[in-house]
């Protein structure tokens, strides 16, 4: 165990040098990393709990999307039946399917033809002349994939419109999206930005009856729908189901003020939208139209003249709200509502405090362990201390090189590793002591100490590595970070204890050729 070929010495030196090079960027003041061009590595990636930021796990509400899809299928069926003059009854959407009864047996063939041509991903069942059309497994999966992917794109555009904030937006499982956004001062903003789907439509108002009348009578004329106002006190409206212009036709939106200096959102339409809007407004001058956002009437201005490419939305908004609304409208509507399942947000102040506390704890822990080893083993303790410092450099280097995320529990993991890292050295030193007590020579004792201790060292470290592995597999967020630092710490401490300390001892033996050893 005491033969150290030169290539092994070089290897140890090389690894240590590499460690120093990769760990160095972390000592630079912030903002200078990457500028020097000399150092290969990057700084350690701090977790959201250390740099501040928001972690949101959201569920894409597929129920709503499925219902919408079925509603539009229902409308298609209604129109097709009308054109084909098929008489039907009980057309409705319920229990995740569209159901309809064909009146006359003669029409069954034509009706089934229409069902067949509705598209892929559907399954039609029937009980004599009543039919049920629902999405099949493949159809559901396709709809879900589309919805989730689209949602992720819209989320990115909403929370990071300039592409500078480096958010992490990941799909998790079937219908979940994880959003991690570093450095947020007010996590409520993100939730507000993602809290509405922002489906914008312009629909003509039916002036033949007021919303209040429709509520009291409980009846809405066919092709019309009753929509509530923006807040609880405002009136509701009966509007045409037909949509004049929808949010997809928006070209841009900015916060502005109307002629009465009230905060509003100015928008411009693309060419399709402008053409359509111009046609409808031209033939409906004097009638009010409803600006509908997420199923609520924001306002219902009267059409004064033909409107083409642009307009203004004024409602009960504050300036901040118009800014957010403009941003959301620019980003586009979410295909489905997002439900926050889990949130973890840390303010920048707490993150910075945690980093400071972690650094102090690590420094104090290091000093305590160094002194204790020195007091217990003298010179060999000092050698082990050198190895311990190399160990810490290597941990920092590995974290930087792998760009693993350092979390607050991860700092605890590093401090804990310092305590456990010296264990391998302790095992060897205790063995050497035993060998010396048995009257062995210095060389033989050290050689025997290493030979005997090594299998114990490997066994004991492997079992701890198992614990770290399962923490990584089943843990989330900060706990994963803890597992990573623990695992890295185990591997580096194995290396430093077995290679670095041993090399130092071998060099000492070669230089001094001691006859006695006090340990």
């Amino acid at each position, binding site marked *: 165990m005491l033969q150290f070929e030169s290539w092994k010495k070089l290897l140890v030196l090389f690894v240590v040098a590499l460690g120093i090079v990769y760990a160095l960027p972390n000592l630079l003041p912030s903002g200078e990393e990457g500028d020097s061009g000399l150092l290969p590595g990057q700084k350690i990636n701090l977790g959201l709990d250390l740099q501040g930021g928001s972690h949101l796990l959201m569920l894409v509400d597929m129920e709503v999307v499925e219902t919408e899809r079925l509603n539009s299928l229902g409308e298609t069926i209604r129109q097709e039946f009308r054109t084909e003059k098929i008489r039907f009854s009980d057309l409705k959407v319920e229990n995740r399917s569209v159901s309809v009864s064909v009146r006359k047996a003669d029409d069954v063939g034509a009706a089934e033809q229409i069902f067949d041509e509705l598209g892929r991903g559907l399954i039609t069942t029937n009980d004599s002349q009543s039919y049920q059309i629902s999405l099949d497994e493949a159809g559901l999966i396709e709809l879900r994939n589309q919805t989730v992917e689209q949602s992720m794109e819209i989320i990115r555009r909403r929370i990071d419109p300039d592409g500078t904030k480096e958010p992490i937006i990941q799909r998790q499982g079937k219908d979940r999206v994880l959003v991690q956004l570093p450095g947020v001062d007010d*996590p409520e903003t993100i*939730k507000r930005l993602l809290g509405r789907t922002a489906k914008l439509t312009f629909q003509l108002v039916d002036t033949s009856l007021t919303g209040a009348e429709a509520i009291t009578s409980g009846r809405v004329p066919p092709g019309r729908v009753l929509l509530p106002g923006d807040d609880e006190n405002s009136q509701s409206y009966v509007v045409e189901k037909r949509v004049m212009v929808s949010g997809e036709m928006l070209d841009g939106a900015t916060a502005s003020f109307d002629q009465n200096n009230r905060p509003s959102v100015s928008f411009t339409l693309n060419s399709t939208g402008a053409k359509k809007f111009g046609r409808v407004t031209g033939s409906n001058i004097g009638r009010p139209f409803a600006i509908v956002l997420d199923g609520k009437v924001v306002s219902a201005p009267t059409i004064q003249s033909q409107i083409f490419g642009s307009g203004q939305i004024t409602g009960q908004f504050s300036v901040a709200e118009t800014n957010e609304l403009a941003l959301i409208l620019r980003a586009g509507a979410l295909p489905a509502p997002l*439900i*926050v*399942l*889990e*949130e*973890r*947000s840390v*303010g920048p*102040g*707490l993150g910075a405090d*945690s980093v400071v*506390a*972690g650094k102090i*704890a*690590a420094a*104090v*822990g290091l000093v*305590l*362990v160094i002194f*204790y*080893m020195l007091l*217990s083993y*003298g010179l060999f303790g000092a050698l082990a201390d050198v190895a311990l410092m190399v160990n810490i450099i290597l941990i920092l280097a590995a974290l930087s090189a792998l760009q693993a995320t350092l979390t*607050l*529990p991860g*700092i*605890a993991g590093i*401090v*804990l590793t310092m*305590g*456990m890292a*010296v*264990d391998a050295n*302790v*095992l060897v030193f*205790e063995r050497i002591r035993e060998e010396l*007590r048995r009257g062995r020579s210095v060389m033989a004792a050290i050689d025997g100490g290493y*030979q*005997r201790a*090594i*299998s*114990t060292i490997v*066994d*004991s*470290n*492997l*079992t*701890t590595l*198992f*614990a770290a592995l*399962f*923490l990584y597999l*089943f*843990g*989330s967020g*900060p*706990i994963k970070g803890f*597992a990573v630092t623990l695992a890295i710490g185990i591997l580096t401490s194995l290396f430093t204890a077995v290679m670095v300390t041993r090399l130092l001892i071998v060099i000492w033996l070669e230089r001094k050729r001691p006859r006695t050893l006090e340990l």
Partner: protein
Amino acid sequence: MMRLKLVPSDTSIDFMKLHPAALVFSALLVLASIGIFLVSGLNLGIDFKGGILIEARSNAGPANVSGLRGGLEQLDLGDINLQEFGTETDILIRVQRQEGDEKAQIAAIQAITQSLGSDYEVRRTEFVGPTVGAELAEKGMLAVGCALLAIMLYIWFRFEWQFSIAAILALSHDVVSTIGLFSLTSFEFNLATVAAILTIAGYSINDTVVVFDRVRENLRRYKSYEQRDILNKSLNETLSRTVMTSVTTLLALLAIVIFGGAVLRDFALAMMWGVIIGTYSSVFVAVGMLAKFDLKRTEEDEEDGAVGDQGSTS
């Protein structure tokens, strides 16, 4: 040169004489832990039962806990728990899971932050919905279960089955008594606690393996000795290392408890407890259980034995 030695070089403590008492003590400890757990249960954090946690710092001197409580109770959010956190300006607000869906929870967070007003800076917001809470609990149990199983298999692979059983009993003893401690003290049991328990398991098994390695080595080396004497000898030989490593680890953890900030304090305290109980269980429970078996001393598995044995011909 002076050396600090917490354990003298040549101890000859008769551990085997202490084992029966220790096993009774441990059995009582485990039973008491299970009892406390069944009676008072764990103080589950929001990670597992869902709910809202908000950490806030007062901008103007010490936080006014009773004033805040009054304001928050008017929000009618059910169980609200306020406590100082680390310093007297910092405060931790825990609110039970709200009736209704996830939207109700988000609304509650907004209501709380508004109620705190400008006198307080919100430093941390955590919200876990019921779905995720249940999943996290499931994953946590799975992690502990799988880790225990993997460790057992590894020990079985490296040692004889008797060692494996003794090790897993010692390990379970540590895990159960840690859970008992959390039930007794009503410390919050959260994801970090699960991490602490797994680390405790790793540390404890590490300790046990070191002792077992020595037992195996001595079983082969001293064929004429009584099994009892071999166990005693092995424990005495490793005692100095056991204490040394425990003390260094405890020193490092102590640094976290004192300087690491309020978030890490409970985590580090749980681990300090784990180091102590893990060290105890390696010496008393693991070896105590091992003594109940008639250990094999043949050399049939010599080739996969420890590397160190090759040098031990003298």
